[in-house]
């Protein structure tokens, strides 16, 4: 089982990602209509939800699953907590620090999909509960960020920080939780997971041509689109600055190493450990920015969105996946 950098890079979906970046950088008129982009991302969530749900129906949750899910939820709360003080070292706008911390506590479904395809190709199994972890890691990170932002706001009210003067009142937590749980992409994943779990093997068969057969082609199309988007965000990079770009690269590795240690001490299986690392190391650029824009309007979306999409996502896809796999295979002896 040899997994070098090329194993991951030389697959059609990843090459289409690079193609998308290239196409945008040379100023081509290749466009994917926004409505189709939305469809592709919903399709991805449906496919991964069905896969995870049907796998759970076959193997059940079990004690292993519960431990993995519990660790995943815990990490999605812890990552924002230790990311925030790191971000505060250089960021003047503490709302930006809270919003970025939230994105990094949450997950990227596309990175998860790319990583699960990667190990499936290598013949390594993982539990269907990994998709449950993916689902459950979204909201705690948002709640943590909102709590951090609330702390910043209350300090501002007391007059200890006067650098930002924003007057709109903060949204109540109930409203924010409603936004987080009813977010379309989040619900799509949960709905598909439940439908997969309820219909089991029969459901898997029925959905196979759609969520299995054409999956790689759809993923290629989606990653082409991601490449186009990443390249068009590159011009925002100068606003992001060296510190935050550095954060976007170093943080996944740090998070990955912490996740690896947890997976090792709790005795995760190899596939579960690898995907657990991927979940903890990735950052959200779809669900979390959509909710954080409501919840922390004082934060600049160009920063947190660009970092998660144009720095951490490509880093994880290109370097992270083979790197984390290498770490796992050394320790688990794959």
């Amino acid at each position, binding site marked *: 089982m040899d997994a070098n950098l090329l194993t991951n890079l030389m697959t059609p979906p990843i090459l289409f990602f690079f193609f998308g970046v290239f196409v945008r950088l040379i100023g081509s008129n290749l466009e994917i209509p*926004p409505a189709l982009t939305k469809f592709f*991302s919903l399709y991805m969530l449906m496919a991964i939800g069905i896969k995870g749900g049907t796998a759970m129906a076959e193997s059940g949750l079990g004690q292993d699953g519960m431990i993995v899910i519990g660790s995943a939820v815990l990490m999605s709360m812890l990552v924002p907590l230790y990311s925030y003080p790191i971000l505060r070292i250089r960021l003047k706008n503490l709302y930006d620090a809270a919003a970025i911390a939230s994105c990094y506590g949450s997950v990227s479904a596309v990175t998860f999909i790319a990583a699960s395809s990667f190990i499936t190709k290598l013949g390594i199994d993982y539990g269907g509960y990994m998709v449950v972890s993916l689902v459950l890691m979204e909201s705690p990170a948002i709640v943590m960020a909102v709590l951090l932002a609330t702390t910043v706001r209350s300090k501002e009210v007391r007059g200890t920080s006067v650098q930002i003067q924003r*007057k709109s009142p903060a949204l109540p937590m109930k409203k924010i939780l409603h936004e987080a749980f009813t977010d379309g992409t989040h619900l799509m994943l949960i709905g598909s997971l439940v439908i997969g779990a309820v219909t089991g093997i029969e459901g898997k068969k029925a959905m196979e041509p759609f969520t299995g057969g054409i999956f790689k082609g759809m993923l290629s199309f989606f990653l082409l689109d991601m490449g186009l988007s990443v390249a068009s965000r590159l011009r925002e990079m100068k606003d992001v600055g060296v510190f935050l770009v550095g954060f976007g690269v170093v943080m996944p590795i740090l998070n990955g190493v912490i996740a690896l240690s947890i997976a090792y001490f709790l005795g995760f299986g190899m596939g579960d450990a690898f995907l657990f690392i991927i979940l903890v190391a990735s950052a959200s650029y779809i669900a979390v920015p959509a909710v954080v824009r409501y919840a922390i309007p004082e934060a600049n979306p160009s920063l947190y969105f660009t970092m998660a999409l144009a720095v951490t996502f490509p880093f994880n896809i290109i370097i992270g996946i083979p790197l984390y796999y290498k770490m796992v295979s050394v320790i688990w002896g794959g």
Partner: protein
Amino acid sequence: MASDGKKMKKVEIVIEAMMLDKVISIMDQAGVSGYTILPSVTGRGHRGHRTGFGFTDVFNNAMIFTLTDEAIALKISQEAKKLIQNYAGVVIISDADVVWPDYQKDR
């Protein structure tokens, strides 16, 4: 330009797509009788390029406009102004000659 239309105020609001519902409720509460929405508009302002992305609404803008009297127009603009302190947007009030102001009565 000579016109026999009724003088009204046109309120145009460009706002982050995800805050459109909020603007609609501001307009409803102010008492407008109707509005027109352009669900996706793009452009550039003090918050940078609002180019629109398929998979997130964070960088999408929408536009809504309505024709109303001055008092309601001011009410809407005051509320909408609070919103654009934190979100991308523009609020414009202009004079408008409405060619067929009584269409509801004519129906």
